[in-house]
């Protein structure tokens, strides 16, 4: 329990790094060193948290102010796992983007702002995983969104401005909804600390509680690209630079999923909207994958599979069973890795082939056999070919669905299998056309820089590593799910006596609860 001080490090360190990198804007090399060192330290901190956290979460009351009054940072098993996977992914993507930036002669990435913004994005993502109160979660969302607005319109080309505008307006709307939800939560319960809200929600009118739940779900559903709130995603992601798309696809939607998991399990454990969520999960899977099948551009195809696979995670959450939640968490960890990897590989394909249109690509298997392997492994992983982690995650979710046994759960099991099959179809189509067909016109691509291939290979291996350690990882996610379902450990960790956290402001306790 002496490691509590480590909990806020993954959120704070990148912010300091961002400031430092901005100050060093003249020197590319200094910026690179700062970013890499900071993200490596964050990864180390996240790993430490992952390996040491027990049933009781690490709770740090910032500034020594006790919990409902002060802001607190909470790192439980779920948060630690998310932090580790996201830090590993951000580090790899940073290295990749550096190699791309250097190879392009810095044309595509205005280096002076790229590094600070990227670090702010990492800080926002990590802060969202660690937030112990709703408003802090809101601020974390805003931090990562503000950074993402800059990254998605990087360079300010016509196409990026067009698609970026849609992304920004949609994100702003979801932020406003989230803020309104927070205002209503505060009006109803008199607190925004999540553990405190969890204690007080059972005391308020169930109808009001359900409205709050639906509002929060709406706000996070937009972020997570859940059907019918997904239409912005396939439009806005593909035009951004490859590394930016990769990190967005891997992390940003998963932050939304994380927020859904956190609020559904901690604040609203009754499962009152499970039926709605199951229907939405089914629709997300099917609509997403049908969209993917129709695409010609490989980046858009992957964006649609991303939407579709969000459905699996929602499916697990909506079952509100131990097995479902376990499968969901495992799937999030797997999907962050594999989706990011695929977008990085597509970045390589774009570089080697000069285009991402499946009509114009072809013959890459002959031109770049290594690239073909790099694509094939995560692609098969995504579509759930045994024995890879995608298969294991899907099996876990399907087992949870079968164990649930209701007709709707069976429908979702069937939908999950069909989605998996259609994913395979879409991916194999991309594979055939990009790598095996005779290209209609010779490809005008550049050779691949080693600096881009290296991080991609590292991520492919990391994805395979998830398969190798799937046993321990599954046990870990099982424990994480158990902790989430047993809300006591979280609430007691934050508010040991049910009223106040550890720290100062004891004199306020005498006054009783606030407002």
């Amino acid at each position, binding site marked *: 329990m002496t490691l509590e001080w480590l909990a806020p490090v993954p959120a704070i360190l990148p912010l300091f790094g961002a400031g430092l990198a901005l100050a060093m804007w003249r020197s590319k090399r200094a910026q690179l060193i700062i970013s890499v060192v900071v993200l490596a330290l964050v990864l180390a901190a996240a790993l430490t948290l992952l390996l040491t956290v027990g049933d009781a979460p690490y709770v740090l009351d910032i500034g020594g102010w006790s919990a409902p009054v002060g802001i607190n940072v909470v790192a439980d098993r779920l948060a630690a796992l998310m932090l580790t996977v996201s830090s590993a992914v951000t580090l790899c993507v940073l290295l990749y983007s550096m190699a791309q930036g250097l190879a392009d002669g810095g044309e595509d990435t205005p280096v002076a702002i790229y590094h600070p913004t990227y670090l702010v994005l990492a800080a926002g993502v990590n802060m969202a995983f660690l937030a112990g109160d709703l*408003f802090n979660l809101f*601020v974390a969302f*805003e931090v990562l969104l*503000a950074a993402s*607005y*800059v990254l998605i*319109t990087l360079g*300010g080309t*016509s196409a990026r*401005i*067009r698609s*970026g*505008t*849609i992304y*920004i*307006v949609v994100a*702003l*709307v979801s*932020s*406003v909804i989230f*803020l*309104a939800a*927070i*205002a*209503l939560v*505060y*009006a109803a319960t008199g607190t*925004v600390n999540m553990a405190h809200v969890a204690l007080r929600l059972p005391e308020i009118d169930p109808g009001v509680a359900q409205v709050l739940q639906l509002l929060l779900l709406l706000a996070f559903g937009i972020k997570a690209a859940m059907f019918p709130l997904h*239409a912005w995603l*396939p*439009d806005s992601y593909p035009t951004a630079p490859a590394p930016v798309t990769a990190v967005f696809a891997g992390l940003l939607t998963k932050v939304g999923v994380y927020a859904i998991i956190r609020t559904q399990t901690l604040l609203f454990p009754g499962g009152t909207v499970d039926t709605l969520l199951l229907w939405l999960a089914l629709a997300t899977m099917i609509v997403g994958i049908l969209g993917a099948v*129709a*695409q*010609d*551009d490989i980046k*858009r195809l992957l964006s649609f599979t991303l939407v579709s696979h969000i459905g699996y995670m929602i499916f697990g959450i909506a079952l509100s069973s131990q097995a479902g939640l376990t499968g969901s968490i495992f799937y999030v960890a797997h999907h962050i890795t594999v989706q990011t990897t695929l977008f990085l590989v597509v970045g390589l394909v774009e570089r080697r082939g000069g285009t991402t249109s*499946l*009509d114009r690509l*072809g013959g890459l298997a002959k031109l770049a056999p290594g690239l073909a392997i790099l694509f094939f492994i995560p692609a098969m992983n995504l579509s759930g070919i045994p024995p890879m982690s995608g298969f294991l995650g899907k099996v876990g979710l399907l087992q949870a669905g079968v164990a649930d046994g209701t007709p709707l759960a069976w429908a979702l099991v069937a939908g999950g299998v069909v989605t998996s099959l259609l994913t395979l179809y879409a991916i194999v189509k991309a594979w055939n*056309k990009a790598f095996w*067909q*005779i290209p*209609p016109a010779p490809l005008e691509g550049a050779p691949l820089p080693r600096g881009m291939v290296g991080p991609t290979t590292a991520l492919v291996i990391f994805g395979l590593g998830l398969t190798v350690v799937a046993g321990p990882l599954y046990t870990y996610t099982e424990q994480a799910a158990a902790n989430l379902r047993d809300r006591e450990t979280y609430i007691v960790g934050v508010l040991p006596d049910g009223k106040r956290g550890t720290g100062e402001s004891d004199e306020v306790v005498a*006054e009783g609860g*606030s*407002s």
Partner: protein
Amino acid sequence: MIEMAPSLVLVVTIAVLVAVGVYLILERSLTRIIIGVVLLGNGVNLLLLLSGGRAGGPPIIDLTPAEEMSDPLPEALILTAIVITLGMTAFLLALAYRSWHLNGHDEVQDDIEDRRIAYLAARDELAFEDTDTDVVVPDIESEAHEVRDETDTLTILVGEEGLVNVPVEAVRPSGDAPDDGAPDDGASQTDREEPR
């Protein structure tokens, strides 16, 4: 404790701000959307203010008795939210200017690629072409005559010369030449067309 019932004036103001904000966000022009976002943000900020109850005295110990203090927390939250809205508005304005700079307008456009695919779907065409399967495949019987998997020659025993490789054509009865004429292109292509 201060009065918790919300002030009707504020509630009506929130309703008007949010309604106007939502209306403006649904516009095409980014400039109007920006105004909408600002109004919507202000409406929600007022909602936050409302969540703390009615205004009391300044929340400073020794200046106001604890029972008459305003709730300081929503005010702190609003302050943060205002700063965030300010930053986002500035960014959106820059974006609108850039859009005007590049395109001469600040219209928020629909998904172009999606429209293209919808157009193709409406014409019942594929979103992509299979160039290398466009080779016309003859029907199976004539193909069976032509295709040789291992060799294009046959090994036969010829008198005292032993085993000799000869072209296939040399041993085929002349009357039995395979009809490698072009099969009906139109028919075979419609057969292969995938149903959409």
